[in-house]
């Protein structure tokens, strides 16, 4: 990949201006989208529960989040006596900043069909419609989602209170468990695309729905990614981090005022970012038919619609599924998702290798089948042994 063509002929003042404009637009877009995401979630979940939801502030309650934000600003900023002052203040910013940063690598527009390589022309300069296109794009996303765990972890630890601590311990255990499945589902996409750059991944999916990785990787990596992403976002049914019935508010129990608002913001921002990442990785990013006029305009619309569909799915999850028990959460992550995506990863790699090296079809897949059978039986035997040991332990106790 060549990277953003904006910088190909050196950097001058106009390039910096375009860059600043892109940063500003992405930042504002994400903030406003978060604001409406909160409204969207509250409204949709109340619809699904036969309620009306916020409807007083602004038309259809659209300004509810704004009103809440104003309220947060004017509330007293409390800090528990036992809290670690510096870390307690730092934690919300870690959560919020990582939420912002991950969005920077998501391509939000540009046509990838035919000859056009996802660039738009602004003031006579060609550029990508994404804030940054680092060659390690996907790794940045994974890194940010890992660092976001520190926000939660440190918040719980620094609060000097037991419920936040329990919540944050749960959060880190959960995030680490599901990050493995999430990462491997991403690796499948990377293998298929042959690049880590998000722009390259979207470009690799251009040319029709069958080229989208949700189809061409088989549906499994996408489903694993969706489940792992839900767990990574600490959203229902995996919201054990803030299980109200058990933990008061979870890691942000001791937070109030604008610091709590930052966590709240980060949480919803992460939902939007994660939806955007899923669209990028599996659903062709901004790909979609150009219906009429304005060629640069339609890809962005398609992108937003796809993101909206995922936001709907996340809210739908929340409205439908009850929270998992903690051991069920760990079972699902370690005993189902990780083995499943491991096998799928092996299968996809083999398929690509065979295509690259022109191996014999029967030999390749025969070997794969044997390996799969051995692996599955070993895994099952291992799981059974583990269960037996666990039962024995229970009986002894």
């Amino acid at each position, binding site marked *: 990949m060549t990277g953003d063509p904006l910088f190909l002929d050196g950097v001058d003042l106009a390039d910096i201006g375009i860059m600043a404009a892109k940063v500003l637009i992405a930042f504002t877009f994400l903030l406003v989208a978060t604001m409406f995401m909160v409204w969207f979630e509250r409204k949709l979940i109340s*619809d*699904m*529960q*036969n*309620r*009306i939801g916020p*409807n007083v502030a602004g038309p259809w309650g659209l300004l509810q989040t704004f009103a809440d934000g104003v309220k947060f600003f004017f509330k007293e900023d409390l800090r528990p006596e036992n809290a670690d002052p510096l870390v307690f203040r730092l934690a919300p910013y870690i959560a919020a900043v990582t939420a912002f940063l991950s969005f920077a690598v998501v391509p939000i527009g540009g046509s990838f069909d035919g000859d056009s390589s996802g660039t738009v022309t602004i003031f006579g300069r060609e550029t990508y419609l994404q804030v940054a296109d680092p060659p390690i794009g996907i790794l940045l996303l994974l890194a940010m989602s890992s660092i976001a765990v520190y926000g939660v972890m440190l918040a719980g630890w620094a609060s000097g209170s037991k419920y936040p601590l329990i919540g944050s311990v749960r959060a880190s255990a959960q995030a680490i468990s599901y990050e493995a499945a999430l990462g491997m589902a991403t690796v499948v996409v990377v293998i298929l695309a042959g690049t880590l750059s998000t722009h390259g991944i979207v470009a690799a999916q251009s040319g029709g729905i069958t080229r989208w990785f949700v189809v061409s990787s088989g549906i499994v990596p996408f489903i694993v990614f969706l489940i792992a992403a839900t767990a990574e976002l600490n959203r229902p049914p995996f919201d054990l981090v803030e299980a109200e019935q058990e933990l008061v508010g979870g890691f942000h129990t001791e937070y109030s005022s604008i610091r709590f608002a930052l966590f709240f913001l980060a949480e919803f921002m992460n939902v939007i970012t994660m939806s955007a990442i899923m669209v990028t990785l599996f659903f062709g990013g901004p790909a979609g038919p150009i219906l009429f006029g304005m060629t640069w305009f339609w890809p962005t619309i398609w992108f937003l619609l796809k993101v909206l569909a995922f936001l709907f799915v996340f809210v*739908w999850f929340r*409205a*439908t*599924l009850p929270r998992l028990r903690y051991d069920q959460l760990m079972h699902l992550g370690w005993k189902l998702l990780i083995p499943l995506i491991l096998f799928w990863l092996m299968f996809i790699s083999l398929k690509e290798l065979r295509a690259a090296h022109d191996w014999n079809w029967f030999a390749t897949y025969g070997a794969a089948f044997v390996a799969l059978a051995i692996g599955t039986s070993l895994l099952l035997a291992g799981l059974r042994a583990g269960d037996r040991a666990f039962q024995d332990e229970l009986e002894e106790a």
Partner: protein
Amino acid sequence: MGYLDGFKVTFMKLFEERVTTEYPKEKRPKPPRFHGRHVLNRYEDGMEKCIGCELCAGVCPARCIYVRGADNSESDPVSPGERYGYVYEINYLRCIHCDLCVEACPTEAITESKLFEFSFANRSDAIYTKNELVVGDDGLPQRQPWELWHEGDDLTTSGWMRATASAGNPDYQNRVGWSGELGYGTRNPEIGQHDLAKDEKSEMPSEEHDQSEDLH
């Protein structure tokens, strides 16, 4: 597809009709025997019904009513009887709206309206004095500044309900009854309350008088 059925349930809810009443904007009709804040009724000629007997204060389990009676002056009587309620106060920080005062009242002077939307900013507002409790010349409760009234609310607020015998007739014990003349508007008496001779299902003795006539 057991796991996925739930998704269909929640999705179909999107298209169902909402049952929510958006309360301050729209109010549902209240039940006929709603216990709201009290009113002190007057006769049609403007005389107060309260005779200052303090039975309401005596029966009140929350001790929220304070009554002092005084003798009517002959030249300018407040009530048709010998005495009238000189001081009448109800403390709404204590009142539990049990309606026992309404039961106890021998003249149907105190009844409960359907008004319940009042929020006080201080304790003195919570104690309704006679000036605030007594109905206006039109027979309607007076609106206090701290009460939330929407247009038309006062028309459905008449409270002339009592659960047992008016006028202390033991034959009407445990019968719901009211006279058709109290408060704002009129309402037909329930079966067994108005014209017992015409009420075939009544178990009341046929020689009993019409209840509302007893009040005249």
